[in-house]
């Protein structure tokens, strides 16, 4: 991260040389949040299967604010889902488990997905 760069800060304030070197961050500012869990889960699995080595899954939990934010990205496409509902915890934890098992399984045939 370049010194003094902060997501919350308007990125116009960031010196242009850093925006050029790190164009990745401007992409995050305009990536939308999914409205439904089903769409997000489907898109996330699809993204993972296109390139397993590139995709990472990030989960951020804030107990003080009572919200949960999930991000699945391959550094080009970024899928995000935000929630403050307790019923989503189980769904999120299931998706985590599914992706973990996919990552750890020997992918002898691409596009193979475990059915729930």
């Amino acid at each position: 991260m370049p010194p003094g760069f902060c997501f919350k800060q308007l990125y116009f304030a960031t010196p242009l040389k850093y925006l050029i070197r790190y164009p990745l961050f401007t992409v995050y500012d305009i990536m939308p949040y999914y409205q439904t869990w089903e769409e997000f889960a489907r898109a996330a699995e699809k993204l993972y299967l296109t390139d397993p080595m590139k995709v990472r899954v990030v989960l951020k939990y804030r107990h003080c604010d009572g919200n949960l934010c999930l991000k699945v990205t391959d550094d080009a496409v970024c899928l995000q889902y935000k929630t403050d509902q307790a019923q989503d915890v189980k769904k999120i934890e299931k998706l985590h488990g599914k992706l973990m098992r996919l990552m750890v399984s020997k992918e002898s045939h691409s596009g193979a997905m475990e059915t729930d």
Partner: protein
Amino acid sequence: MVLLENDAFLTELTRLFQKCRTIGSVVITLKKYDGRTKPVPRKGHPETYEPADNKCLVRASDGKTRISTVVSSKEVIKFQMAYSNLLRAHMDGLKKKDKKSKSKKTKAT
């Protein structure tokens, strides 16, 4: 970044969740890992590492402390069960179903 064994990682993760109950956030990252311990060689240099296909990297942070662990296919079942239980137990600060609580509130008032 502290690399731990699976059990130690889960213990530390519990501690992170407990520490961040009043303020702060817990960030967990999950990524497929091919077992590399050396950097990728430059173009033109021979790639001498055989990538393993059955590992994943789990990282956790509260902004200050960072911990990580490697899960392989042999440990995934046990780890995943413990990990799910941990998440479900600690991510309990979210709102319950609104409709039911609203109707209960109207009945009470």
